[in-house]
């Protein structure tokens, strides 16, 4: 069902945990739907110095969170903003169609954490103007 990459990130998820006094924290998803992702960012000079996550969810939700943290660690905010759900899924060598919402959730978790950072620090992040962290990726 899952690619070897997904299983690798599920077995050994990268960057699990929390960051104390994080510069940005984002939580997306809904326990009703069976998945919640929480992402913590440490940002210095516009660069994501550290990132951690916690996820309640299925194998692909955990793998998507893990991959998303890998894709943004050490990157600039602008680069992190370009990490779409498609990129997360591609980096995992694909997800089953019914699991695509997990990668959407990962993209939203990154954006939610960046939105929190931008609000706390009063910085404008291009592309977050219309972002709604409460939007339901399951479409129901």
């Amino acid at each position, binding site marked *: 069902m899952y690619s070897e990459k997904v299983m690798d990130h599920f077995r050994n998820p990268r960057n699990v945990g929390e960051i104390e006094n994080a510069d940005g924290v984002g*939580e997306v998803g809904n326990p*009703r739907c*069976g998945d919640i992702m929480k992402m913590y960012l440490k940002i210095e000079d516009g660069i994501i110095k550290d990132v951690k996550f916690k996820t*309640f969810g*299925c*194998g692909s*939700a955990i793998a998507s969170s893990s991959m998303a943290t890998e894709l943004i660690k050490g990157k600039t905010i602008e680069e992190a903003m370009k990490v779409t759900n498609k990129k997360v899924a591609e980096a995992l060598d694909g997800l089953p169609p019914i699991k695509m*919402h997990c990668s959407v959730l990962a993209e939203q978790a990154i954006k939610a954490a960046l939105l929190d950072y931008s609000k706390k620090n009063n910085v404008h992040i291009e592309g977050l103007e219309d972002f709604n962290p409460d939007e339901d990726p399951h479409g129901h």
Partner: protein
Amino acid sequence: MEKYVYMDNSATTPVKEEVLKEMLPYFTSKYGNPSSVYSLGNESKNAIEIAREKVAKALNAKPNEIFFTAGGSEADNWAIKGVAYANKGKGNHIITSKIEHHGILHTCKYLEKHGFNVTYLDVDEYGLVDLQQLEEAITDDTILITIMFANNEIGTIQPIKEIGKIAKDKGVLFHTDAVQAVGHVKIDVDDLNIDLLSLSAHKFYGPKGVGALYVRRGVKIDPLISGGGQEGNRRAGTENVPGIVGMGKAIELAYEDLEEKNARLIKLRDSLIQKIFDNIDYVRLNGHPTKRLPGNVNVCFEFIEGESLLLSLDMEGIAASSGSACTSGTLEPSHVLLAIGLPHEIAHGSLRLSLGDFNTEEEVDYVVEKLVEIVARLRAMSPLYEDVKEVK
């Protein structure tokens, strides 16, 4: 993988050696078509009739009330559609429950599109139907009550005899999907007032793709599969002779020493439940504590999700199942867990471990040991658990 612990016996069971041994000649040397007049055909025909007697004996039915099918789903479809269409002159109302197998529920949904009305009874927190609600649901138009014998997910055993009695008193036919019960629970169709009963061989160490429908003599039922005159003109198609032979042997074996086997299984089941509760917190048992299948354990671990639990167990060589959304192929958790009143977020964390004849206490200990590690690992990753720890 060196160690493999199979605890998904409600999904399917292995074919027992003795069963396979009886089946094998009917693939190769005794391959005759049972409808043929020559002796090779007769040999197959006789083998089917011996199997029919064995199935009938297990249920306290008569051989001519047993009809072989290609499995449990076919038996369910046939019972419901067959009775509905044959009795539609009498009425168009069917009563079932909200926790039936999809073989029943989807068949009822289909009939709703074809002029039948269906009442779906609620169940209580243990998964039991309410007999009073059942009685009140019966109208002059009711032609069939179909309530499962034992639930496939939570293992709850329904008050079948009482349901049958109500149906009998009201002159309504009673069908029970006994796919999870046959071979595991003592069944007497007369004593339990059952008119139709579905069973499936692979749930009791027989082969896949073969089942049967018990139809009490005198019950009006249309065929589901039309064609040749097999099975007394009621179920067309050349018989699955090896499968039927296997089912006969398997059901015979299942009831040979049922009480001893069940005493052992119940002890193993209760030990597994106890050890889970002793070693893991925030866990709940689903289904009835005693009115449940001897091998069924169904628990919910809060703050984690079932599919990640199953994948983690698989990595340790343990096969189990879950009612989480991610394992159902939809985004909704199991209809059974929702019907017993579990909130969605808890239903997502369900785990079913179904024990069988080959499981041991040693395996129970291994599974509990691994569960402790896995649940701790997944909870450490879960933002929901973090909130609980803060409250503590």
